[in-house]
């Protein structure tokens, strides 16, 4: 019996050490991650060489007030068109991607049709291809159609994202039951109405999660806009740096942050609620 007897003090000590290690690592990593953001918000408005320590210690409010002119100048300049372009592209890409992906995920789980399994495996297969590989062919195609400089040519490839469809299908499979569908049909609802009024609210957590990812990805995409949008008037924001060097970086980083803050209360529960049944 003495072999099986657990030494309680030893166990408690081991648990404590593990707890302290976890907290320490988490706090270190959090500090490492948050420092760049703090630095960004305190130094983005003043170009100048200062050491990291001084940057941390500087008073952000005073500096923001002092350099308010830079932000105002930005909004009066021509470069604000780039900001609007970025907003338009990101907004429509995200909305389109969410709707089309949710539609496809729904069609893959709720209906039995002939090519369902094929489309399933096809999406998984396509997920493994980096999208930038098709950039060269896409560039030729856009020039063949003479649609370069058109913002929609940047929006359409972003709408098609197999990763999003896969994720939404995974989520829908765990939260969907045929009873909702059948009872809605019994009440005489059309299929589109069922989708818009029943399924979309059901998938809100997954949609919120993927919306944040999609928005950030499209906002910061440097590959496709660089090759499609040639006119400086039509370009998206990351390229404004080339033309107008004193653009406040804060403008570039603010919209994704706002989107994240808006959706963030959905993201954690959303991602963890998705079941991993295949």
């Amino acid at each position, binding site marked *: 019996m003495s072999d099986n007897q657990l030494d309680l003090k030893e166990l408690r000590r081991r648990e404590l050490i593990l707890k302290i290690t976890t907290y320490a690592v988490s706090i270190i990593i959090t500090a490492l991650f948050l420092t760049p953001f703090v630095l960004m918000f305190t130094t983005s408005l003043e170009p100048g060489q200062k050491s*990291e320590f001084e940057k941390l210690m500087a008073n952000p409010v005073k500096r923001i007030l002092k350099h308010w002119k830079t932000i105002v100048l930005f909004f009066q300049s021509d470069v604000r068109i780039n900001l609007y372009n970025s907003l338009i592209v990101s907004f429509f890409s995200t909305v389109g991607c969410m709707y089309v992906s949710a539609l496809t995920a729904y069609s893959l789980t709720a209906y039995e049709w002939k090519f369902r399994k094929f489309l399933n495996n096809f999406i998984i297969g396509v997920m493994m291809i980096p999208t930038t590989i098709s950039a060269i062919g896409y*560039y030729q195609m856009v020039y063949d159609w003479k649609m370069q400089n058109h913002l929609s040519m940047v929006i359409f490839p972003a709408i098609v994202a197999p990763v999003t469809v896969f994720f939404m299908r995974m989520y829908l499979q765990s939260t969907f039951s045929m009873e909702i569908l059948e009872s809605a049909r019994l009440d005489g609802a059309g299929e589109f109405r069922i989708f818009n009024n029943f399924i979309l609210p059901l998938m809100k957590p997954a949609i919120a999660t993927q919306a944040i990812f999609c928005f950030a990805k499209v906002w910061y995409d*440097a590959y496709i806009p660089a090759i499609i949008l040639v006119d400086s008037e039509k370009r998206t924001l990351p390229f404004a740096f080339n033309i107008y060097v004193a653009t406040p970086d804060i403008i570039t980083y603010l919209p994704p942050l706002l989107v994240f803050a808006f959706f963030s209360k959905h993201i954690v529960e959303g991602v963890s609620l998705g079941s991993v049944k295949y």
Partner: protein
Amino acid sequence: MSKKNRLKNRYNKWGYIFAIPFVVLFLVFHMWPLLSTIAYAFCDMRRFECVPRFLPSIGEPWYRNFQQVFESKSYNDAFRNTWIFFIAQVIPEWCIAFWLAAMVTDRRMKMKGRLVFKTAFFLPKLFQGSALGGVLLGHIIATATTVVMYVTMAAALDGFGVDLQDIKFFMSVGFLTVVASVFIHFGITFIYAVAGITSIPVELFEAAEMDGANRVQTFFRVTLPCMKPMMFFIAVVTLVEGLGMSDVPAAFGAFDSLRRNLTMMMYIQNQAFMGTYIFDRASAASLILLLMCGFFAVIIYLLFMKDWDEAKLKRLQKKELKAMENA
């Protein structure tokens, strides 16, 4: 019976209708460019707005583009760099992410402040900097550099016998690229790992705890096998982002003459769009990248998703059926 089938068919046609937008958009905007790129790899396309000419038709061997790609020194550098960056980034990132995910969702050790940590870890992914003038990326790199510098300087000052020569490795572009990549991709790996772990029913963990499994055993024998589809997802995303990494090394200076930070994606970009329109070589390099991605993706699929026991069962059943037919 036929009426029920007719009803079902009437509803099932909506499956086709709902899938049409995705399929059409995908075929037009992804499949066709991909096939064109593959076709261009075998053509001669050297100038802007030219018509691709199929290589054998102008008397050159069909593998000329591939030959030129493999012979060029910058491609070999890019190839080597990409693989070094990828493997050096994935191993620490996965270890720390999975360890922290297991610790954060551990039931026996209730950790406080989980939400704060999850949000903080996710932030760098959200702000993945742009390729041109990514100030945030610069800040991340500056922070990482400063930390590394302070740590190594402290080690040197303490008289551990560390020379400036030894520290030089930690200041090199390669090391900093790897550190910055780990920063950026750690958050998303962590979030998906936590999602995978929390989707496992609690009863399994309770049963393991009752059977006396310690944490390590629980992790490797209960958590990881139950997480296979999520692991597949994470592995594929990591592979695709790692091999296609072009923005992090570019932030260090896109035209490094010693090619210390050249990756394959940057090579393709330089060939095709940065002044020289050598599309055919870029297409050949893209095709090679695609084949590599496909090869490793198939390996990942076989590792994680394929049900080996079920396949064996099916084979045995087929054999039995055949034996019964022959008897």
